[in-house]
């Protein structure tokens, strides 16, 4: 490389469109959510644009609304890690990020799966750690809803600690495999592990070599204070929600401050919120396109279901193009939509919504379009490039996870028209500089930390 990189580098990932109403499956261009070809198409396209990583979400129970499986949005997805392992075969450089729950998995299997993915991909594995505690999801698993909500992060922290002990129980050079001497594993390079804690009690010998990255990159999705603390102690990347520029800067400063308080380097944790991008030849065209997409993401039944969740009531007769219901919400009914969290205090929420709708003369659907909009970047390629770069250069984020609304080609415009502009200004790589995801993200490779097995 001849160019000197004085400019802060942007990190960009792509999110495979998933089981939520961002994904517009009603569009005739919308492809399969299941066929491997869809995953391959997005991952390869993102790799051609030199993006940092490809991101897969996870859900362990089909969502339900009013006691029945929710049928209005995309339903169903393949298993996260096998898809990423398969993508390792058809890509060479792009990072592969899998969302995996610490509540319904054990550290031994997680450590093994991620070490395997790291080896199979040549050092491109990442784990987006999520937690859950709901008994609804638990009904698919041996232990049911065993975990108190308050213990979610306690367990997550312990699972990660044990997983790292397991990865570190093999030295980097443990596998010698020298035919001449017959040494397969170097003496003393594979050590037994042992851990006893409130959530995890394990001892033994790990089966799988340390991956090229030492530890897979750890993502953590969390905007809450607990989530921020957890990330500042443990994670390499925070995956947060898109916010305004000022809120982004405040979040950034808060989290980087927590890092420093824990003795970590400010650059050792990247803040990469999710965002949507809509580009057009003119600002007006982009705005019009964005409005169309937002309307397509919130069809009438979705708007009604959204309101039903806040009200805790069956509102099947509600006209989505009419006003909000006049009844008061049911405080007791927490479970009308399952597999999704309910918002805070329903009465206060309903008051706010009524006021918003009255002021703006909004229908139910208009309101829900507004409430579920997460901002995102809308405009000409040059404008969007300016904005993304401004967020990053002025420390409102370290980059973005781009969430498309169409499978699998919903990001083609951004990758073809915006990314080259970022490359031109030296804010985004023109070529991958190293083989691993840690290389892409500028994260140090962790050394083996030896714990003594007792």
């Amino acid at each position, binding site marked *: 490389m001849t160019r000197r990189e004085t400019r802060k580098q942007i990190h960009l990932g792509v999110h495979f469109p998933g089981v939520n109403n961002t994904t517009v499956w009603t569009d005739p261009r919308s492809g399969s959510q299941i066929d491997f070809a869809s995953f391959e198409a997005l991952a390869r396209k993102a790799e051609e644009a030199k993006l940092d990583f490809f991101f897969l979400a996870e859900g362990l129970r*089909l969502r339900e609304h009013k006691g029945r499986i929710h049928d209005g949005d995309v339903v169903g997805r393949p298993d996260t890690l096998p898809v990423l392992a398969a993508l390792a075969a058809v890509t060479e450089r792009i990072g592969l990020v899998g969302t995996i729950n610490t509540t319904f998995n054990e550290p031994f299997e997680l450590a093994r799966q991620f070490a395997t993915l790291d080896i199979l991909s040549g050092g491109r594995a990442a784990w987006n750690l999520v937690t859950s505690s709901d008994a609804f999801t638990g009904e698919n698993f041996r232990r049911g809803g065993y975990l108190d909500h308050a213990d979610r992060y306690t367990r997550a922290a312990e699972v990660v600690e044990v997983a790292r002990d397991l990865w570190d129980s093999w030295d980097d050079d443990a596998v010698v495999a020298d035919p001449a001497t017959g040494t397969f594993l170097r003496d003393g390079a594979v050590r037994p592990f042992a851990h006893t804690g409130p959530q995890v009690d394990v001892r033994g010998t790990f089966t799988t070599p340390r991956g090229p990255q030492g530890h897979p990159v750890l993502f953590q999705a969390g905007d809450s204070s607990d989530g921020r603390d957890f990330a500042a102690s443990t994670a390499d990347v925070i995956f947060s929600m898109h916010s305004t520029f000022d809120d982004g800067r405040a979040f950034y400063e808060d989290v980087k401050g927590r890092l420093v308080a824990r003795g970590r380097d400010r650059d050792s944790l990247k803040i990469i919120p999710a965002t949507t991008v809509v580009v057009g030849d003119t600002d007006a065209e982009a705005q019009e396109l964005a409005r169309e997409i937002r309307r397509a993401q919130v069809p009438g039944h979705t708007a009604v279901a959204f309101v039903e969740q806040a009200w805790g009531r069956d509102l099947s007769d509600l006209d989505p193009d009419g006003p909000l219901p006049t009844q008061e919400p049911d405080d007791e009914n927490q479970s009308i939509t399952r597999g999704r969290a309910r918002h805070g205090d329903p009465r206060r929420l309903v008051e706010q919504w009524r006021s918003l709708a009255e002021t703006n003369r909004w229908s139910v659907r208009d309101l829900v379009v507004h409430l579920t909009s997460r901002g995102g970047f809308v405009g000409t390629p040059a404008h969007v490039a300016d904005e993304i770069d401004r967020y990053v250069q002025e420390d409102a984020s370290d980059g973005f996870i781009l969430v498309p609304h169409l499978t699998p080609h919903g990001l083609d415009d951004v990758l073809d028209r915006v990314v080259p502009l970022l490359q031109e200004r030296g804010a985004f790589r023109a070529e991958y500089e190293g083989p691993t995801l840690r290389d892409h993200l500028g994260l140090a490779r962790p050394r083996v930390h030896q714990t003594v097995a007792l």
Partner: protein
Amino acid sequence: MPVHRTLHLGVDLTDAGAHPGAWRAGGSRPPRPFDPARLVDLVATAATGLLDFALFEDSFALQPRRGASYQGRLDAALVAARLAPRSHGIALVPAVDVTHTEPFHVAKAIQTIDHVSEGRAAWQVAWSTSPETAAAFGRRTAPDVVEALTEAEDAIEVAGRLWDSWEDDAEIRDVATHRYVDRDKLHYVDFEGVRFAVKGPSITPRSPQGRPPVVVVVDSPLSLDLAARRADVARVRVEDVDEAVQVRRTLRDTATDAGRRPDELRVLVDVVTVVGEDLRSAQERLDLLTELAAIDAEPGAAPVAGPFDGSLTHVGTALDLADLVAAWSAAGAADGFTIRPASLATDLAAVVHGTVPALQARGLFRTAYPGTTFRDTLGLTRPASRYATTTS
């Protein structure tokens, strides 16, 4: 036209081969034990021989060190997924434990390998009674073999239900009514076993084979019963042709007693192969492998009776192996074989380029894959979902 059934030949691609000294026997080639490119090459070689499947053993216990033996494993299910996209024809069969894992996770992993391979996945059901494995996992104490197998049978049942929990045409994408799925075609599986309960449905839509085939290793009367009731492919380890005939007959009778048609079950005999230009060179290769394994080199190493305990072992030419395979099939001892090359670097190619053409010349082995899925290769029909109510 008479129904013609070909022999079935799978290959075990675990580690560097069935012999513990195999990893040292690659000549000038470095062993690259955990390099996926090595596995990609092996699967491609096996597929040129039109073999039925490539199998990957797995365990949550590190192989004990014996002399210069191979140690370490990658997760077999993810290895199978990694090998799926750029391979064709050949099925990929990972062993996946059910004693310590979640049946829900296992079912969707296998289902997803079936999706990414477009119908070439199967599942070798593995269970564990080892206290060391139980301690490493940390969720439970080790079950005895009766409990482990009872639970394995429950896991197979629940996986089958989850695989059927989406009917084939559940995804409708009906824009007019704004329904992505027809939820009447999604089903709770409501499994309640002694050790676990699973509500369902799967998060993953029905896969190309509907239900990926289930493979069970027969190593005891209990696992024979399990295979007879539940397996699509039973792997048996016997050294004697008469014993094999007897085991196959027992499997088929037990399957019949369980209400199955015996022809739904493929009985495959494991055969460890050490191939040479002639008998003497094959024997020399085996001697060399044994020397390289250096089992006795380490004082206090666990004693082993031999590397291939209990398995039929062929030491000889590729053509002799074809004779053996033909003779055992003719005797009714097997529907096919799981070849376990002593050394993957040498014996797999010898089987593909020597044994397979010889069997093809006798009309005993396929000259092309009959279809695209593993069920096509095995000659098994694609099952309808047990929950489907319409037959249109």
